[in-house]
Structures are given as C-alpha cells and as structure tokens.
C-alpha cells in the first residue's frame, strides 16, 4: 500500500529524488524544499523544451490548460511488483542532488548517479542537479554535459527560478518519453503482468483469453500514460476500450484499474468543479471499482489485491471527506479498518491505519483519529527499533490532545487563557458546578494512563529522556491513586533515570510531585504592621487601622470589593514569608531538592529550601524571599527542582484539582489522602511592594520572657526600641491596647519623643510601670497558658519622612509596632474574708468627758497632731471606752512560698464640712506591719473610728457627693434606687481610703485589691460606721467647779494621763455629776432625757423599792431643748449607799423628730418614737461596806 492515496494520484509522475555523494541532511532538506513547490508544471510552460518527433499519440492534449504533476519521493522508492498495473507506481524519473562543496570530484558524482538510477529500471529521464559548484567544477561540468546540471551559486530566488526551468525541461523530456512509449506499445504491444497472474501453464482456451486480456491491459496502461501526460480525454478513450475488453474477458482486476483511471480522468477533465452529479458519478464508479477488486480476489492466490480494494476505499473516502457526508465516510473507513486483518504486511497495516487516522482527523473526528493513531503507534512499537519508537512517540504525542493528556508545553497560550477564566471564577468563591465539570472534561483515566504509559515506553526506547520524564510526571501526578505503590516506585525510578540523561538544570513544562497549595500568607508580624498615614492630622494613624474591638465587623460584609481586593503590602528589602503546603500522596520518599516561590514580575528574590517528604505525608513549609524593587508582585506558583528536573507548579491547577475532588470528578484529593485537614481555598492576594520604611524592633531589657508578678505588684519594666530599618523615624506615638490596660500605670513616651528622629541603628530605652491585676479563678488554673490573651500591649505608631525621594507625591505610610507586655500574674496574698467587728468597752466616768473623735474634729477644732492620734488608736483607754468603735477585720492567707508583709494605711480626708477642699491635706494613719509567713493566714484589724462624721446633717446633701448617700437615706423624696447608688458611692469613698500594701522579698511590692470585699462587709452597717448618733451622751464627775474652767477637750485629754486618781467615787458621799448631751445635728432637738443607774446585777438601783442610790436633782423626764451643735449639761448628785460597780445610762426620747432623725434611727413610721441611748458609763464606788 502507498501512503496518501487519492483518486487524482493516478495522474502523478513519481520522481525519485536521490542525494548523490555526501549531502548534509539540512542542506538536502533545503534543496528538497525548493523542489517541492514544482510539483505541477503547466504544459504551456514546457512547450519551449518540447519537440514533436513523431505525431503525438496524445491527440487531445490540452496545451493551454493541462499540467504535468510530479510526486517527489525523497530517496526513491523500491520498485513495486504492481508497477505494470498502475504506471504511476513506476519511478519514471530520477533527480540526483549534489552538494558540490562536500563532493568535490564531479566524475565520481556522475558515476555514482549512474549507478543509482540504474537501480530504477523504469526510469525514463535522469537528471543530476549540482548546487554551489566552485569555478573549477563549473568549468569541468560545462564540458561534461550529459545528465549533470550545475546551479551556480546564487540567492535562493535565483536558484528556485533555475530549478523551475530545469524541471520544465525534465517535464518536456518526460512527455516526449511518454509519447515514445505509447507509440511503441500501440504498435508492438507489451506484456503486462501482475503478481496476480498465475504462473501455471495455460490451456489453449485460456491463451486466447489471455491475448484479449493483454490487449485490454495495454489499453489501460496507455490510458495511464495519457493521464500522466496530462491528457484526460485521450486517457478516457483508452480506458473505455480497456473497460470493454476487461468486461469481456472477465479480467476484473484490470477492469477495476481501468475504472479507477477513468474516474481520475473524469476528475482531471472537470478540474476544480465539484457538483453533486459528479460526486454521485464518482461514488457510483468507485463502488464498482471496489466491487471488482473484491471480485478479483482469489483465495488460492498467494498474493491478494486486497490492498487495491482498501486503497480504492480510502481514495473514495478522501474524495468524499466532508462533514456533511460524515456517515458515509465513517462507513467506508470502518470497512477499510476491517480490511486490516486481511493485510499480511505489517507496514501495509501501518499505512492503512495512518490513512484512516488522517481521514478521521480531517473529518473532525479527533477521537477516532486518536484511536487509529494509537493503533499505528502500537504497530510501530512492535517493531522494537529506535526509529520506530521515535515514530511511535511522535504519533502518540499527536493523540494526547484528543485524550486530554497533552503536555503543557504543547498547549497554546489561548487554551491556557481559557483555563484561566475558569480559575478566576473559582477565585470568586462561588463556581457553578457545570464550569467545574468543564475543567475535567473527558477524564477517561484508564485510557489516559495507557496512552501516557505508551508515550513513556516509546520515549524510553527512542532515547528521549525529556519526553519520558514529562510522560512519567504526568502519569504520576494525575493518576497516582490508580497506580500501585510498586508502580509508583517504578515511575519514580523512570523519572530519576530520565533525569540522569538530561543536562542539569533542564526545565519541563509538566510538573511532577509534590502537590503544592498556598496555605496562607502570614500577615505582617505584629511589629511590622503598615499604617496608612493621614498627613492632615496630628494623630495620623487614626482611622487607618480597624479601631473596633471586633476582627469581623458586619459593616464590611456587604462590601464585596474589599474582600476581593485582599491586598498585601511588602516592603523593599524586608524578608517576607509565604506558607505553602506540600503533599506527597505516593508510596515513596520524595526528595525535593529545592523549592522556591515563582515570581514572574522579576522584583523578588526567592530563597530556595530543600525538603523531603515521607510517603503519604504532607507538610506546611515556609518559603521566603525579599522584594527587590517597588511594584506589583504576582506569585502564580512555585519552582520545584525534584527528580532532577526543574518544573513550575501552579497553585491554580491544584486549586482546580481540589475543586474537582470536592465535586467527585477527580479520583482523589492529594492533600486529604495525606491526612491534611481541609483547608479553605486560599486565593493569592494582590501584592504590591512599597519603598523602604523604618522598622522598629523592641525588646524588654533584662530578657524578653514573661514578667512574673504577684497580684497587685507594682514594678518598672524597661523597654528598648531600636530602628532596624534604613529610614530614620521622625514621628512616634505610644498608646495602650489590649486587655488589662489599667495594669500599665505609666509609660514614658517623652523619652522616646526626645530622641526623635531615631536614626537607623539607634536605640532608645524607656520605663513602663506595671501593676499586676487580679488572677481570676479561671485564670488561676492555667495562668501560664492564657497569659497572652490577657496582657496589655503598647502600640507604637511611627513613621519615616513624609515624602520619599522616589515618589514625591505619595505619602509614605507609617507603621505600627505592637509591644506585648508579657505579664504573668501569680497568685499572691489571697483575701479570705472581711467582717466588721463592733467593740463595746464601757467608759469610766471621770472628771472629764471621754474623748470622742467627733469632738476633736468639731468644725471649730484645729488639727490634732497625728502622733497622739496614733497612740490613741492603738491603745484603748479604759476610761474612754470604745463605744461606737468598729473594726474591720481582714483575713488574709498566703498560699505562695514567699513571705509577705502587710502594711495597712488609712487615708483620712479632712474635707468633711469644709469648703476649702484644696488646702486640706489628707491625713494618713499607718499601722504596724503584719508579717504573713508562707502557707499561713493572718487577720488585720482596721479601726474605722475616724470615719465618723461630726455632724448629722443634711447640709452635705448639697455640698458633698460623698455624703449624699446618707442624705438619700434621710430624704424620703429620693427614690429608692438613687439612694442605693448614693449609698454605694459613699461606701466606695470610704473603702478607697483604706489601702493594704504588701512587700515581699527585695523588690516585690504592691497593693492588695480588696475593695470589693470591704465593700461587701460594710454594706449593711455603713450608716453606723459613718454617721454619728444624733445625740451624744456623756457623764462627768464634778469636782469643785473644774468643769467650768476646763471645757477644752484637748486639755481634758491631757488630764486623762492620771485618770485613776480622779475617777474614784466614795460611798456614802454626795457625788455631783453632770450628764453632757450634745446635739450633733443642725436642728434644735427637743427631747425627754432619762438617766438611770444600774448595779452589777443590772438592777435599777435608782428607782424601785430597793434602791441603793439616792439622788438629788432630776433624773427622769427631763425635757430639754438643745440648740444645733451645742451641748448642754444637766447636773445632778448621786449618793451611793453600797460600794461597788455601777453603770450610768442616759437615754432620750426625741420629740417632734424630723426626717433626718427618723432615717438615722431607721424608723419605719412617723408615729414611732425616736429613742436615743447613750453608751454605758462605769462608775466604781469605793468605800467600806
């Protein structure tokens, strides 16, 4: 069989083109390419070379429109046994090609040419074309003449022109030879044989038949020559005769041949016109041709004309090969394919399949074409030699498109662009199922694997390591789930074997392993945040960063542009990092020699890393690099050097793959099968590089570890800042953020500001004062773990010069440094409980009044020196008693392993009634230190005496919010709620004056925060603590008019130094006494005073039947009125009959009590009498019983 058969093929003159001498392949190709366009020589052009020797047998030759056609066969064709049957199979001319510079000896060339054309006995015309002869050769050649034609050196156009002329000459010679041959054949007849003709002896009848046949065959052959000579009309005439004779003699084979020739003549005659009538005619005649060829088959024959039948089928198919007639063509081609079985010669089968594949291809049936191409490749592979393997490889490469396994290097930019559109949709988040499906169209994994494996096999045999590598890579990457671990290993070996034959640094368009996807783009480290600068404002950073406490704000949701335009800013010269995840889903150890980010924009230096992946494992690795110049950066993927070849792995492809896996379209998700968790589709943000910015780096002096503090501890921490960038810092501002901001008591931003501008490399250190917060119960369990969340941070906004030299219009951004203060709060002293204790020590009646605090702090009184106060606070004077004194008891325990010392101080404000708050200094009472050992607890008593207000008054109501709370209780018009709030405010004020400081070790000190506990303890009895009774009662012995001389309480207090001598009372003596009643309110109080005396047993010894005390003066129902803030003395005398201990008590019922008094007495109704009772006074009566 012959390749590329067509109906018109019968009219083509086969010309062998043979290189003579040594012709370099590329030069030969060049000469051959010059020859190829000369396949058609018009008859009109050859007339100058044509001389009519005899009368031409081609009577109807169309000299004006006819052509001679050539079919050039490079290297010549072996003579076919069928060339008598079809003259176009004969090599009718031989053209030798000589490249003179490489073949200097022209004689040798001529001899060689003579030898080579002698091997083509059918050749009628021989010419030897010698190109680029030198001068001597020219000279010699022109002398020789004969077949040699010299082409002097010239440019290509000239050479082509010369060649054209030479070919016209050849054509003319051929035409003359044809005429000669035809004349000879017509006159003498010729013996024409085919391998079909039996060698057996013929019977006489058959001899006659054979004669007739011979005539027909001669006519047919003459017709062939007419066709070759470009005269279809003549040819047709001869063919008609041949057909007649063929039909008569039953020579089906030659009949079919003549019929074929007649169709060719018909087509040549109707050159270019194709109508349906012609088509029908051709179809009809060719069907008959095929039928006759079939008829001529004889099973007894050794050779079969099946090839002619198949060729005829292919010719018809090629003639009809149009989309509209697809069905018919498919039918023909299927029939032809069926014929392959009957072909004995493997190369015939090869040609048949090639032709079928070509015809299917031109019909647009790519899959059919691929199928037959693969059949071709398999036939090639059966030959087991390198050239066949190369052919197989190339044929298979053509099928890859139909099977969707093509190498990326063969995919045009256009299709890449189309795929890009798909991935853009994927980036958008929502992607329609159908468009996902379209990404994975025609995933016939079984056949795709087979094709790739065959490519690999053929490439290995053909010795093409790159193709082998690429095929193995595609196979491994796309179909690893379908390959056994052993097979995967084999592919890995194939990859490394191929790469050994490749030069180092070879690149391949098809990636192998691993699978790479973006894991994340780490946002700037917190100390590298970039903040847009608003040059119009002093606080230029405001509004540029998310200010709210929420990472996610619902308001940004609707703005899809923001989400899409996820932007990343990188800075020239500052290293960046990208996290990518690698997966090796195969069963072998994967060694990635180097992997780095692939950046096409050229302004980025990527740092390679090498890594090895265990079987079926995935790893997240950090790829880093440094932006080198300003501009956008795009990162489509990674460059990987693995298995000896450099490949680019695009993130987009893996994303599509994962998408397909999610939809069940792809076999497996390489990451999931490696046990990697499902990751959200991370899109590569748009990245831009900006000019260099200053870079502040911070560290805590003394180590960056956590600062360990006990609860409430106060400590200074020094923070050092250094400019690590290349740009000076010109602006800086410090602020606080995060939780527990109040734990930062102070920070010195002035220190930083004073050092501005901070040059590159400069350093500044400033102090920050911290106070540890309370550890809550939940925190206490995992103090060390949760410290990050609860620590405050210093926010330092800083910026370089406003304008950069590169772009004077743009405002260079500032940056933000977050200095997290890693504070680890340990549990310190723990507070157990607080309770209020009241103490009642009765006072002794003496000559002076017991000194009440309120008295000393009376509005008219001066300051008392604190020393004496401290004395009195600590010691309890038995004569004074402690009626109304209350203690706050704090119980503290020390669960730590260090010793704490407690120091309680009470701050006392003397602002009670005074308007001049400003010049009133607070008085502080200190108490001795209490030491609490480890694992011990202790109680600290805090006297609350000093808090009593001197006057029960509603004047505070308007002046002072501190006492408003009390006022609220007094005034019925106040709502319940506000009174409660006021009460709380009052308590808070009280509590804030009590401070519990602690010390531990050398440098730990702090304050215990127990406000809440104290507040809780005081809640119920705050009124008692804070407010004085409306009336103060006291008793005094009167000794010879001392009282009138000595009203000053301060002096009285001095007298207290020797109380024992003065306070004794003798029995059976008249003892004059004074009951002192003081009005603590600002209103006149009218009341009914009663004085009683009780003995040890508590019996009333004044009234009653067995009274042991006699008296003068009035003791009961004394009605008195006391002006506001005044005291009155009520004198009386007692006469004790029995010595011993007595108790004096004063009580009063207030008449017409106002609201204040009622509130103070917690009276529930207005009708209830207000009853005031004084503290008991002890009196010791001496004497002999």
């Amino acid at each position: 069989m012959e390749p590329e058969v067509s109906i018109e093929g019968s009219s083509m003159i086969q010309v062998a083109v043979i290189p003579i001498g040594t012709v370099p392949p590329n030069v030969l190709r060049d000469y051959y390419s010059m020859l190829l366009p000369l396949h058609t020589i018009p008859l009109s052009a050859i007339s100058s070379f044509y001389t009519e020797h005899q009368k031409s047998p081609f009577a109807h030759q169309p000299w004006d429109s006819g052509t001679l056609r050539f079919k050039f066969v490079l290297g010549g064709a072996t003579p076919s046994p069928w060339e008598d049957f079809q003259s176009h199979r004969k090599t009718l001319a031989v053209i030798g090609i000589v490249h003179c510079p490489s073949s200097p000896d022209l004689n040798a060339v001529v001899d060689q040419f003579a030898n080579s054309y002698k091997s083509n006995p059918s050749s009628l015309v021989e010419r030897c074309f010698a190109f680029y002869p030198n001068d001597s050769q020219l000279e010699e050649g022109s002398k020789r003449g004969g077949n040699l034609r010299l082409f002097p050196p010239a440019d290509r156009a000239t050479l082509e022109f010369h060649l054209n002329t030479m070919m016209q000459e050849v054509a003319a010679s051929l035409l003359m030879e044809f005429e000669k041959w035809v004349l000879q054949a017509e006159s003498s007849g010729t013996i024409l044989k085919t391998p079909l003709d039996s060698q057996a002896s013929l019977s006489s009848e058959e001899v006659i038949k054979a004669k007739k046949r011979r005539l027909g065959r001669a006519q047919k052959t003459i017709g062939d020559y007419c066709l070759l000579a470009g005269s279809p009309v003549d040819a047709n005439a001869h063919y008609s005769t041949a057909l007649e004779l063929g039909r008569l003699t039953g020579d089906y084979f030659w009949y079919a041949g003549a019929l074929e020739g007649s169709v060719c003549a018909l087509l040549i005659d109707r050159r270019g016109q194709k109508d349906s009538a012609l088509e029908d005619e051709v179809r009809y005649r060719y069907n008959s041709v095929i039928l006759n060829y079939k008829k001529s088959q004889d099973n007894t024959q050794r050779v079969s004309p099946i090839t002619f039948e198949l060729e005829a089928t292919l010719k018809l198919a090629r003639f009809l090969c149009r989309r509209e007639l697809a069905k018919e063509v498919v039918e023909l081609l299927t029939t032809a394919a069926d014929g392959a079985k009957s072909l004995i010669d493997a190369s015939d089968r090869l040609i048949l399949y090639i032709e079928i594949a070509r015809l299917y291809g031109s019909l647009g049936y790519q899959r059919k074409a691929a199928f037959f191409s693969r059949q071709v490749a398999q036939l090639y592979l059966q030959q087991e030699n390198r050239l066949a393997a190369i052919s197989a490889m190339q044929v298979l490469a053509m099928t890859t498109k139909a099977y969707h396994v093509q190498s990326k290097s063969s995919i045009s930019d256009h299709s890449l662009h189309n795929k890009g559109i798909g991935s853009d949709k994927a980036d958008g988040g929502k992607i329609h199922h159908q468009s996902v499906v379209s990404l994975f169209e025609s995933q016939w994994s079984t056949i795709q694997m087979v094709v790739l494996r065959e490519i690999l096999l053929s490439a290995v045999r053909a010795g093409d390591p790159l193709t082998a590598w690429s095929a193995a890579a595609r196979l491994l990457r796309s179909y690893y789930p379908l390959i056994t671990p052993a097979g995967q290993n084999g592919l890995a070996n194939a990859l490394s074997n191929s790469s050994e034959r490749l030069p180092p640094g070879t690149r391949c368009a098809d990636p192998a392993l691993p699978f790479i996807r973006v894991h994340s783009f780490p946002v700037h480290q917190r100390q590298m945040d970039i903040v847009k600068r608003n040059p119009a404002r002093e606080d230029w950073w405001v509004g540029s960063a998310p200010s709210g406490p929420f990472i996610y704000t619902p308001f940004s949701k609707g703005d899809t542009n923001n989400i899409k335009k996820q932007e990343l800013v990188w800075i020239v010269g500052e290293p960046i990092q990208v996290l990518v995840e690698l997966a090796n889903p195969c069963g072998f150890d994967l060694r990635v020699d180097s992997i780095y980010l692939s950046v096409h924009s050229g302004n980025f230096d990527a740092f390679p890393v090498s890594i090895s992946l265990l079987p079926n494992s995935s790893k997240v690795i950090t790829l880093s690099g440094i932006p080198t110049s300003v501009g956008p950066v795009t990162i489509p993927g990674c460059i990987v050097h693995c298995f000896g070849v450099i490949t680019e792995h695009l993130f987009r492809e893996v994303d599509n793959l994962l998408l397909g896996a999610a939809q069940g379209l792809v076999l497996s998700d390489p990451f999931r099968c490696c046990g990697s968790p499902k990751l959200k589709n991370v899109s590569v943000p748009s990245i831009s590089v900006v000019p260099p910015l200053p870079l502040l780096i911070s560290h805590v002096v003394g180590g960056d570890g956590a600062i360990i503090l006990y609860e409430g501890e106060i400590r200074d921490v020094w923070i050092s800042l250094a400019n690590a960038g290349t740009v000076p810092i010109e602006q800086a501002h410090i602020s606080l953020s995060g939780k527990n901001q109040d734990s930062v008591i102070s920070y010195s931003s002035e220190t930083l500001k004073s050092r501005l501008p901070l040059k590159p490399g400069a350093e500044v250190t400033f102090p920050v004062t911290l106070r540890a917060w309370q550890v809550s119960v939940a925190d206490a369990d995992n103090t060390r773990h949760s410290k990050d969340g609860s620590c405050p941070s210093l926010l330092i906004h800083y910026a370089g010069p406003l304008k950069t030299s590169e772009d004077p219009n743009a405002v260079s951004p500032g940056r933000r440094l977050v200095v997290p203060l890693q504070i680890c709060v340990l549990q310190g002293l723990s507070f157990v409980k607080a309770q209020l204790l009241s103490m009642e020590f009765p006072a002794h009646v003496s000559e002076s009044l017991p000194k009440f605090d309120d008295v000393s702090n009376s509005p008219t009184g001066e300051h008392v020196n604190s020393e004496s106060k401290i004395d009195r606070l600590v010691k309890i004077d038995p004569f004074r008693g402690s009626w109304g004194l209350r203690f706050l008891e704090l119980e503290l325990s020390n669960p730590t392993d260090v010793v704490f010392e407690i120091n309680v101080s009470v701050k006392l404000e003397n602002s009670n009634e005074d308007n001049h708050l400003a010049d009133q200094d607070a008085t502080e009472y200190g108490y001795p230190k209490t030491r609490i050992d480890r694992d011990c607890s202790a109680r600290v008593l805090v006297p609350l005496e000093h808090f009593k207000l001197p006057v029960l008054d509603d004047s505070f109501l308007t002046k002072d919010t501190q006492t408003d709370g009390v006022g609220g209780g007094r005034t019925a018009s106040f709502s319940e709620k506000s009174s409660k709030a006021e009460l709380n405010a009052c308590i808070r004020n009280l509590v804030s004056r009590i401070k519990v400081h602690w010390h531990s070790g050398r440098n730990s000190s702090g304050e215990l925060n127990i406000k809440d506990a104290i507040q809780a303890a005081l809640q119920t009895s705050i009124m008692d603590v804070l407010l004085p009774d409306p009336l103060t009662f006291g008793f005094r012995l009167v000794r010879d008019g001392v009282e009138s001389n000595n009203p000053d309480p301060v002096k009285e207090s001095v007298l207290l130094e020797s109380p024992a001598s003065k306070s004794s009372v003798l029995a059976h003596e008249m003892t004059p006494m004074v009951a002192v009643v003081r009005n603590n309110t600002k209103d006149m109080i009218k009341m009914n005073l009663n004085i009683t005396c009780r003995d040890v047993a508590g019996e009333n010894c004044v009234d009653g039947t067995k009274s042991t005390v006699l008296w003068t003066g009035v003791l009961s129902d004394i009605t008195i009125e006391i002006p506001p803030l005044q005291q009155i003395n009520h004198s009386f005398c007692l006469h004790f009959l029995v010595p011993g201990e007595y108790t004096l008590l004063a009580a009063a019922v207030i008449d017409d009590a106002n609201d204040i008094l009622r509130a103070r007495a917690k009276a529930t109704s207005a009708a209830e009498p207000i009853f005031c009772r004084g503290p008991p006074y002890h009196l010791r009566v001496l004497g002999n019983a």
Partner: protein
Amino acid sequence: MATTACFIIVSRNDIPIYEAEVGVAAKREDAAQLHQFILHAALDVVQDLAWTTSAMYLKSVDRFNELVVSVYVTAGHTRLMLLHDSRNDDGIKSFFQEVHELYIKTLLNPLYLPGSRITSSHFDTKVRALARNFGKLFLLPRDLTAMVDFPLSIVLCTRVISRRPCLESYMLPKVVPLLVLQFVMLTDLVLDDQLFD
C-alpha cells in the same frame, strides 16, 4: 465464541461515570483497555448520529474488528454504551432501557451530583445482574442462534431471563411435539452455565 462485553456510561461532558466489564471472558487488562479506547473513539460517531434520530437507542453505531458498539442516548445526552461482539438488538435494547431506569433512579438521589461518577454499589450490582441476564441473550453463540428460528429464540430468551419454565405454557399448543423436544434440549443446553463460563 462471543464473550466480550464492556458497558460504560458517559456523561454529557464526555466523562465516563460508570464502567463495567460485563463479559464472561477471562479478563485481560489490555483487552479492557482496548474496549475503552474503542468506546471513546465511538463517541465521535455518536455525537453526529444522536441528532439524526429521535430514538434513544441508536443500535450499533461503530465497530472495530469483531467488536460492535451499541449506544443509547438519554434525553440529557448521557450515553449508555455497550461494546459487544454479537448482534442481538432486542436484548441490548431492553438492557439499555433497564439500565436507563436505574440511571434515572440514581439521578433522583439528591446526594448524587449529575455528571459525577456513579459509585453506588447497588447500581453496580443491578447493572451486572442485568448484564448477566441479558448477557445470555446478547452473548448467544451465533451458531446456536442460527439453529433456532425466531419464535423459539424468544421463548428461549424468555426462559433464560425469567428463569421459569414458560416453554410449556407458551409454546406447547402451537408447535409440533418433535420441535418441542428439540427446543427443550436446546434450552437445557443454553441453561448449562458451562457453555458460557
């Protein structure tokens, strides 16, 4: 001996969503691959042919050597393709119709994404069972079918499919006893599994 059959469902996106070798011949890997190649190539023919007829069953559309491709195109352009090596249009047609029904049931599953691979083992079992039943039909040896005339082959088929002795009830009144005897012999012959396995 006719023993090859390969069944495949190709989605409208030309992705094979179900594949099954349902032949009774010993499975050879390269043969299975060839089957897929032939079916894949036949898609070219189907794509033109499907628009020329309103019938879903396109009969045999393509062949390569002895292997014939029969195709059934659903309304959604999903193609059921069967590669087989003997002709029994009726059997194949009913096989396709049954599988189409099964396929529709699969489509109705809300968890099945149209166009994705059918992984239901239930579907697989059913298809293979169908193929086994009809397989006796479309894998009938040619020489045997040649011996049997048409009505008999129907009876034979019915018997094979339904696995119940319908021969007597269906054919006895109409055929000559001698023939019946022959049928019964044939039927037994057909039912002998060794003939096929």
